[in-house]
């Protein structure tokens, strides 16, 4: 078990965004979290990645309690994350966007004198990652020139550049046209399998969820209401009503 | 100290009164149009100098009209600046807006020198004529009380306007979300222009009000700008209520500080700012600051 969440809770005033939940993720699997808007999915990702501090509970990553750690430490432990709205460095080139993650994980960010492109290992690794995400041709473009789908991919690629054991992907296909969705998810799935990474994905598109997940966690009002392999979830009536009710 | 306590409170409030008027103008422009108007100090100075023109005549009717005419003229100048220059830089990086208004502040301040010359102008007719009253055995000028009351009244009007009128509601809506407002069919450009009119008029009014009890002199713009800026930071950027409370805090701390720590007056306002920011990083009534 690479990640174990125990009795985790986060309240925003009266709102119980995450309400004492417990679950675990096995190494090498893809787990999806589904649920209506406001179910607490993104809050959960934020808690695990360190963006928010939980009110109570524990988060064990490889048996280290990472609860309350700042994000930069958590990412260095091997947890990468992406964002629903891509967080990328708009005025840097695609290559630089990925390189910064690599410098960070290799501890090179204090290097002040050597040219950033003179680190050959990192350069070839960055190009490999860009290649994996289909962005290699655009490596010298400034990021503000990229279309939305590529931005989503880049956002994820930057997380993968950290050489993570676990990635938390917050709606990797949101805002992408339905035709593009399949392509984006295919690339992400390939990357996950190729790198042997464990993934926790928040996703709305149930088709994608059912076809890529090993396990699905259904959240509603901050609680986990169902958990299981895709086939179990598919037949669950309560899940269906929650999801349909939430989606409209 | 005890017998003169009310006096120091009044002194503090008097200082706060003009500071509030300047700061509220600055903060309205900032919150709605998203521009930190570095020329606001020069606007205030221009108001003070313009007011001396009528105040030196000694004609009481003319002088009372001054308090309406001067803000109006200064408001129009603000409007002109907005329509003519600032309109073009809304979508620029905010630093270039700073650069533009900084240039404008130099230009306006120098125009004042060209028009009025370098000598300080003292126009104290009103101060003299309004006389003094006795507060607990201490003499106090009535004019200071007038200034305090006017500032309170203007603050009340501002609050009523922003809170109770449709236009005020629209102005506030613009300050929260520019795109949303324009989507709702509000002519945002017009609102910005109006904001500049209103903000500048407040600065001009402050200038006209302060002139009788002091002098119109070169350099008064620089201090006014930085102090009112700090006031709106203490109060929380974009908040009229914050400007109100902020100016009262600054006024009172200064007033008592002069009594207890006369040698460090120079640093008072920065100390207040540092303390407030350390305790409440977004100011007293600040909401999340966004780059619009």
């Amino acid at each position, binding site marked *: 078990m690479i990640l174990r969440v125990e009795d985790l809770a986060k309240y925003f005033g009266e709102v119980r965004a995450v309400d004492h939940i417990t679950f675990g993720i096995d190494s090498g699997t893809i787990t999806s979290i589904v649920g209506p808007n406001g179910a607490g999915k993104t809050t959960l990702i934020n808690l695990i990645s360190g963006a928010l501090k939980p009110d109570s509970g524990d988060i064990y990553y490889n048996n280290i309690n990472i609860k309350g750690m700042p994000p930069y430490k958590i990412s*260095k432990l091997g947890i990468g994350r992406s964002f629903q709205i891509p967080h990328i460095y708009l005025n840097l080139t695609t290559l630089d966007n990925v390189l910064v993650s690599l410098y960070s994980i290799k501890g090179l960010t204090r290097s002040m004198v050597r040219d950033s492109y003179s680190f050959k290992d990192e350069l070839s690794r960055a190009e490999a990652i860009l290649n994996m995400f289909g962005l290699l041709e655009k490596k010298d473009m400034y990021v503000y020139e990229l279309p939305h789908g590529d931005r989503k991919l880049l956002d994820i690629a930057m997380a993968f550049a950290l050489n993570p054991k676990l990635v938390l992907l917050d709606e990797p296909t949101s805002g992408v046209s339905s035709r593009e969705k399949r392509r984006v998810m295919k690339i992400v799935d390939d990357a996950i399998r190729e790198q042997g990474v464990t993934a926790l994905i928040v996703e709305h598109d149930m088709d994608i969820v059912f076809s890529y997940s090993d396990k699905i966690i259904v959240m509603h009002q901050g609680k986990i209401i169902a958990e299981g392999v895709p086939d179990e979830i598919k037949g669950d009536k309560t899940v269906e009503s929650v999801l349909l009710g939430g989606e409209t | 100290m005890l017998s003169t306590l009310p006096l120091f409170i009044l002194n503090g409030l008097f200082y706060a009164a003009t500071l509030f008027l300047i700061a509220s103008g600055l903060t309205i422009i900032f919150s709605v149009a998203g521009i930190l108007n570095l020329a606001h100090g020069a606007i205030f100075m221009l108001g003070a100098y313009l007011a001396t023109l009528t105040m030196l005549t000694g004609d009481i009717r003319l002088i009372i009209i001054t308090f309406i005419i001067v803000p109006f003229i200064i408001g129009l100048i603000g409007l002109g600046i907005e329509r003519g220059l600032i309109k073009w830089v809304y979508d620029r990086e905010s630093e270039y807006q700073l*650069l533009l208004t900084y240039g404008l502040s130099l230009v306006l301040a120098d125009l004042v020198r060209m028009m009025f010359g370098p000598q300080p102008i003292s126009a104290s007719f009103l101060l003299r004529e309004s006389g003094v009253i006795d507060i607990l055995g201490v003499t106090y000028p009535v004019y200071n009380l007038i200034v305090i009351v006017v500032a309170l009244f203007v603050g009340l009007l501002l609050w009523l306007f922003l809170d109770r009128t449709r236009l005020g509601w629209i102005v506030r809506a613009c300050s929260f979300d520019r795109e949303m407002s324009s989507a709702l069919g509000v002519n945002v450009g017009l609102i910005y222009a109006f904001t500049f009119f209103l903000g500048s008029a407040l600065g001009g009014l402050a200038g006209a009000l302060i002139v009788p009890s002091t002098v119109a002199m070169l350099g008064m713009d620089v201090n006014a700008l930085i102090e009112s800026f700090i006031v709106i930071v203490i109060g929380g950027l974009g908040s009229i209520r914050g400007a109100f409370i902020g100016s009262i805090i600054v006024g009172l701390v200064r007033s008592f500080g002069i009594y207890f720590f006369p040698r460090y007056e120079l640093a008072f306002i920065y100390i207040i700012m540092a303390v407030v920011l350390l305790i409440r990083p977004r100011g007293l009534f600040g909401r999340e600051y966004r780059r619009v």
Partner: protein
Amino acid sequence: MHILRSIPKEYYIPISLGLLFLFLISFPLIASRYLIFLLSLALIYAIWALGYNFLFGYTGLLSFGHAAYLGVGAYTVGLLIARVGIKSFEILFLAAVLTSLGISALIGYLCVKYTEVYFALLTLAFGEFFYALAFKLYDITGGSDGVSVPYPYLFGYLMDTKLLYYVVAVLFVILLYFAWKVVNSPFGKTLQAIREDPVKAEFVGIHVKRYQWYSFILSGVYSGIAGALYAPLFAHIYPDLFHWTTSGEVLFVTLIGGHRMFLGPVLGAIIYAFLRSYITAYTIYWPFVLGLSVAVIALIFPNGIIGSAYSFIKERYFSKTVVSK
């Protein structure tokens, strides 16, 4: 063009720096003493603005109190000469670097906890704190009158205006080269990443506050060096060096050139120093003319003079898309 193409790309920087260096060194041959003085001033401003831009242009933090570190450098040198009697510029220079390092480290540590306008204001408050110190510690600093600073000695030679010019020019070229190395190093890229998206930077393992702090220190030291050269140039130091209006000046210098460009602050500084000096000399209504020039620059160059020129050329001749933001 043929010769140009035969030069390998990695030699561009050394060659242009070499040319710049040769130009600066031979400048006294063609220019009057006054122009040498003015260029010294411009280059000192350039060093300062270059340092400022680490923080502003590359890390995205707008400081409104950067006069403090210029002042610290200048006062360190000035007071050590005038009050302690240390005349050796090597020691003075080292002292200025150390004090500006220490003080910017301390203040930077407190300030980077804040962001956006609150960062700007906290730096402003600290700048004014130093202003008040220089103003109030009358017996040491001479208060508002300032202190007259006799010329120091560099390796035993009197550092008059001309020798000072060479020192300034050499330091400028070194610091320019170093700045270029820094902004293109992983460290520099990290700063830019922080500028673009501090949230993301935190999630790729960058301790954002710490790197903002490093950037603050770096720019503080550059400012301190500029100050250390400023004091002997004017042979006088006074509290306005710390004042927020002086801090505003470095911001405006950077903006005039364009803070998105590496050379923006440098050219901004040179343009501003010469513009200001000539305008003030030729009209007594210089605030008007200077203000007008600044306003016009702000209006017609949305990315600063160099930034806009670069965008224009790039749009016109090289790329289908424009550099803009």
